[in-house]
């Protein structure tokens, strides 16, 4: 590839790192994902309730899995993406990265809360307790506090660039908690059951259960993209409201 071509390819990727070009793209992305997400979740839940058989050990209580596991996966995945944007903000200092990290935090916290809530409602009938201080549950609770800490720290600093930086350091540091959550059921003797689905082994569950769960997971993933895109658009407008491109954009819209 010639230098000119290479430069062009690079600039076309980095073009979207600028709020000006990302703003309309985020709008389109949020509409597309916002339409697909509920459809996939509905199909996934239909399979979960009407196709997937009753579990031999846990009866119908296991049907909580169709939101519990996807929500728990999203809680960890969103944290990794958030920490990625935070780190990108620290290293390459694009204006957008801090806003991306901030836009993801509430959604990550929400899925962490859902994972904990559904876990409590699943734990009660199967273990006889809403909550136990087991490694998996405790590390997931720490994840919730990391999200809260990230948002609180960001909110406590007035200057948005400095807030981005401070919160980014917290986010990157907290990344150490993610493998702890993921491997907790292997490293410690936990009450929480081991993984039914892993990267290395075939899933130890009926194919229909697996299909339903994966569809809801993809649905939650698209939901997160949609909601983060809408949120980042608000953040862009809030931060860059006085710049000429926003005025030009708003004039075109009205």
């Amino acid at each position, binding site marked *: 590839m010639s230098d000119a071509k290479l430069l062009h390819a690079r600039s076309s990727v980095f073009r979207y790192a600028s709020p000006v070009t990302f703003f309309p793209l985020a709008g389109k992305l949020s509409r597309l994902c916002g339409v697909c997400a509920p459809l996939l979740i509905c199909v996934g839940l239909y399979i979960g309730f009407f196709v997937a058989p009753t579990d031999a050990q846990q009866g*119908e*209580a296991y*049907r909580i899995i169709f*939101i519990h596991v996807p929500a728990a996966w999203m809680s960890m995945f969103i944290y990794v993406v958030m920490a990625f944007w935070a780190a990108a903000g620290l290293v390459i200092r694009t204006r957008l990265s801090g806003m991306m990290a901030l836009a993801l935090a509430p959604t990550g916290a929400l899925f962490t809360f*859902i994972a904990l809530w*559904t876990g409590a409602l699943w734990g009660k009938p199967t273990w006889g307790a809403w909550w136990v201080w087991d490694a998996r549950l405790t590390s997931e609770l720490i994840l919730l506090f990391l999200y809260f800490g990230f948002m609180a720290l960001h909110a406590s600093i007035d200057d948005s660039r400095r807030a981005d930086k401070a919160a980014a350091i917290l986010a990157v540091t907290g990344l150490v908690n993610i493998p702890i959550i993921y491997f907790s059921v292997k490293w410690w003797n936990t009450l929480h059951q081991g993984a039914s689905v892993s990267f290395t082994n075939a899933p130890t569950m009926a194919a229909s259960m697996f299909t339903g769960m994966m569809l809801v997971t993809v649905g939650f993933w698209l939901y997160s993209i949609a909601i983060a895109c809408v949120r980042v658009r608000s953040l862009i407008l*809030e931060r860059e409201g006085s710049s000429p491109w926003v005025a030009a954009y708003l004039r075109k819209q009205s």
Partner: protein
Amino acid sequence: MNWGSFADFVQMGGYGVYVWGSYAMTLAALAFEVSGVLRRQRRTWRRLQAQLTDEPAL
């Protein structure tokens, strides 16, 4: 088909409270987030539009 009747479906083999309690909270949480995000977007949008009409167009 797993369910003989609608009542069966609601009871979830005796685990109805736990299963539906999970699904209801999830739905409520997502609805809360969506409405909050859309409200914030509308508010920001309106504020900037108002600012724009206040300022003389260049």
